[in-house]
């Protein structure tokens, strides 16, 4: 099947190096300490942060840092066919672990000992790149909650189909069987915190695809900074500063 047609357009009309449209909003769940909605094309994800608060399970309490918990779940109607078991299947557990470890690396947990930070992510619509959208949404929500972090964490995925590196795969391109490289970076510090790939790829092509994904992450970081700046201006305005 042709994923990039001879004119260089993909199935949804994008160019190979073009990302899907990003849209984000902060403060959507009133009861949460921080929350955000993040959309990458048709993939729509909502993240809510509860914390820092008292550890619910005293046996898990750590005396010199905060415990970070994460749960990833997909809505029944998020995928094409209705899902029977959206939580606690292997994929959801793996992604919960990945998101937790990625965010834990950048939250300054030693500033909040004996407390717990809960990151809950709910996928409302899935069209490829849910892992990346979840990490981006979690970053925004953590910023909304005012939890101290070393840097933003942004994530983006890239692939390689029809001998062309493609940025930000959607579901059809993702299920084509080609390699899928997901990268998560701390943009200011220029460090990679998440790197996952499946399928085979020669090393030099891998370098190109990973660089492409990192460029995508930087673009997401710029967008997130704009959103946070806009949000701060709104807050200033409301406080009458």
């Amino acid at each position, binding site marked *: 099947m042709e994923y990039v047609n001879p004119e260089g357009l993909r199935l949804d009309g994008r160019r190979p190096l073009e990302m899907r449209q990003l849209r984000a909003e902060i403060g*959507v*769940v*009133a*009861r*949460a300490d921080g*929350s955000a909605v993040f959309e990458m094309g*048709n993939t729509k994800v*909502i*993240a*809510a942060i*509860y914390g820092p*608060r008292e550890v*619910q399970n005293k046996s898990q309490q750590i005396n010199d840092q905060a415990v970070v*918990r994460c*749960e990833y*779940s997909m*809505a*029944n*109607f*998020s*995928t*094409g066919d*209705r899902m029977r078991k959206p939580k606690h299947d292997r994929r959801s557990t793996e992604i919960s672990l990945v998101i937790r470890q990625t965010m834990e690396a950048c939250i300054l947990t030693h500033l909040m000992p004996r407390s717990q930070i*809960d990151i*809950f*992510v*709910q996928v*409302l*619509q899935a069209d490829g790149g849910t892992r990346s959208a979840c990490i981006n949404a979690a970053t925004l929500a953590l910023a909304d909650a005012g939890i101290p972090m070393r840097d933003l964490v942004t994530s983006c995925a890239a692939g390689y189909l029809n001998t062309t590196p493609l940025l930000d795969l959607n579901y059809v391109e993702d299920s084509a069987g080609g390699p899928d490289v997901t990268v998560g970076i701390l943009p200011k510090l220029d460090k990679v915190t998440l790197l996952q790939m499946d399928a085979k790829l020669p090393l030099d092509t891998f370098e190109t695809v990973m660089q492409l994904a990192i460029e995508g992450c930087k673009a997401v970081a710029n967008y997130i900074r704009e959103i946070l700046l806009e949000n701060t201006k709104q807050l200033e305005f409301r406080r009458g500063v």
Partner: protein
Amino acid sequence: MAAASGSDLSSEMEVDAFRRLFPLNFHERHLLKSIRPDGRTLGKARDTIISLGAVTSANGSALTKIGCTTMLAAIKLEVMTPTVESPDDGCIAIDFHMPPICSPIVRPGRPAEAAPVVAKQLSDTILSSGMIDLKELSLVSGKAAWMAYLDIYCLDADGSLFDAALLSAVAAFSHLQIPVVSLNDEGRIVLISEDNGGGKLEKEPVNKEKRKLKLATIPFSLTCILHKNYILADPTAEEESIMETLVTVVLDSSSQLVSLYKPGGPVLAQTSAIQDCVALTRQRLKELQKILNEAISDMEVD
């Protein structure tokens, strides 16, 4: 006594602290002046918004907000074989989820207490209200019928969960469009996509065009809290946690009583209190009908 100590400290304490330490006292002081902490009068419900078609991949969907309580409902249709006893009936499965994002009390791994209760209430109300005629979901008698899976997700739990969930379910059903299908050679139902609708079809389609369900009477509800001799309509989560006696009244579009639910609680109600709740529900019914009709006509304009 708690009330006395409250009033002694109140002159020295900040409002937020007083609200957290003596919540009942805080609310009762407002009720004495016939007002609630968020500025509403006792019988007034919060601002309600309905947005249809929130989930593009579902056959019908709606996002409703009553104040801060947010519910997202989506309906997916699948083909199934009807039972032998009712070969002309389709089926509806209603599921209500409270994911951990909606409230600080919900713990991952342990479902919220309220979730199965609201799910059962919803299921009973929708199926017994006669809103949907299951025969409309039939495709080929005895061989194929539609199974409608309705999933409602609570995205923010701030009181009156049942009201918001019922409203989103009703809105999703009024947005539902049944896709065009036909019977292929092997006797199985296949979906006809809009792209090849213009070409020649192998067999006659079972239903000619995307159609909407005819909804007979639409149920609307209002939850009220009874406290001493006050009746508070549309409680927030804070009010629900302090004053625990809830009464939910469901009326249909012709103001007939569909369901009445008072699951115990510390306040014992006289029949006059219940009648007042029904009267408040009747007012709310008119508001909700107007909002739903506006949302539907907005969709049709698009």
